[in-house]
């Protein structure tokens, strides 16, 4: 596969939606999602070898998006970046259960170890089978089951201490 800048621009047009759509779900922010989209393809321009050896471009984009988004959520947690950017003080709290629950999921994803969080994202947010998750994580299906079980335990504990 030859990936010169023109080919990467073409890849951006044809496959960029895979990144943008998942980043929107994971981050809940249009601006952050577009930033992840730009970052992934800019990195690809600098280092096309990253995807050249991948068996599946879609699979590689899933891995890259998940990694970038989990990093963004962790930065948001440590720097309270998302809170500062997205929550304007003084706004009336309406208490919408769906939006609050989604924000809680993102907050808890930032607390999980990367492999555990990635397994949660792939299985629950992307609806993947254990076999599909195993393919992207490069591990066995049994390991995926273990990661998901661990995630639920850590999740329950985090909720209790919140």
């Amino acid at each position: 596969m030859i990936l010169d800048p023109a080919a990467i621009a073409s890849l951006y047009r044809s496959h960029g939606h895979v990144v943008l759509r998942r980043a929107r779900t994971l981050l809940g922010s249009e601006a952050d999602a577009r930033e992840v989209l730009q970052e992934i393809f800019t990195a690809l321009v600098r280092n096309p070898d990253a995807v050249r050896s991948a068996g599946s471009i879609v699979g590689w984009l899933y891995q890259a998006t998940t990694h970038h988004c989990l990093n963004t959520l962790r930065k948001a947690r440590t720097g309270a970046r998302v809170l500062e950017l997205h929550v304007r003080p003084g706004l009336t709290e309406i208490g919408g259960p769906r939006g609050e629950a989604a924000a809680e999921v993102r907050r808890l994803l930032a607390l999980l170890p990367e492999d555990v969080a990635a397994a949660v994202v792939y299985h629950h947010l992307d609806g993947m089978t254990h076999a599909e998750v195993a393919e992207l994580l490069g591990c066995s299906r049994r390991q995926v089951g273990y990661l998901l079980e661990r995630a639920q335990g850590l999740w329950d504990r985090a909720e209790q201490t919140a």
Partner: protein
Amino acid sequence: MNLAATPLCWNACLSALRLDRWMMGELGAADSETVGTHVSTCAACSTAVAGMRGVREEVRVLPLPPVPGRPATRRRVTAVTVAGLSLALAASLLFVLRTPPATERVKGPGLGLAMYVQHGTEVRRAAPGETVSPGDAVRFAVSTPRPAFVAVLSLDPAGKASVYFPQAPRAAQVPAGSEVPLPLGTRLDTTTGEEQLLGIFCASAVELEPIREALERRQGAASLPADCQGLRWSFVKR
């Protein structure tokens, strides 16, 4: 909370990965046919695919990533940049309603307005500038990182402004979330041409009639109350 029951969980039968691979031609012939047959008969999966196609159309008009040797584009576009970009790209959707005072943010991060269209039995996520038909049913969804008071107004091809949502004199409360469906759908009338939509996100339950009246009087160039931010959309009815 059960991890399998969060609001972000995938709700189609086939995974997002499998549907993406199918759309991008990465599956073998037999597998691709199996997925295609399933999608054509499954409402949940066909809705998911329609959403994926909608985002694909959006990306086609977004700026390309910077290449080495070319000055990098600004990652977080300002409201003014967004306005210029949208004017250059006739089909683009987000632009400000007026030049903002220096202290006021007109477009906030994470705000979004999406439109779903039902044409016959097919439901799709409409791309900005898309053509729809009289009689189609439309429903809006909004994204907001914090709870907000929301309204959706329109300026039809005949220059008449109206309020799509809510059916109330003031903007209605919507919880924070991504693509939160507004509870009210509507069926498009027979007026053809370009219809402009204005989604507003406010910190208080603003009165809508002054905004509607200004939108009609100034033919889309309405200013907003100080605590509101606006997103604009358009579609073509024919």
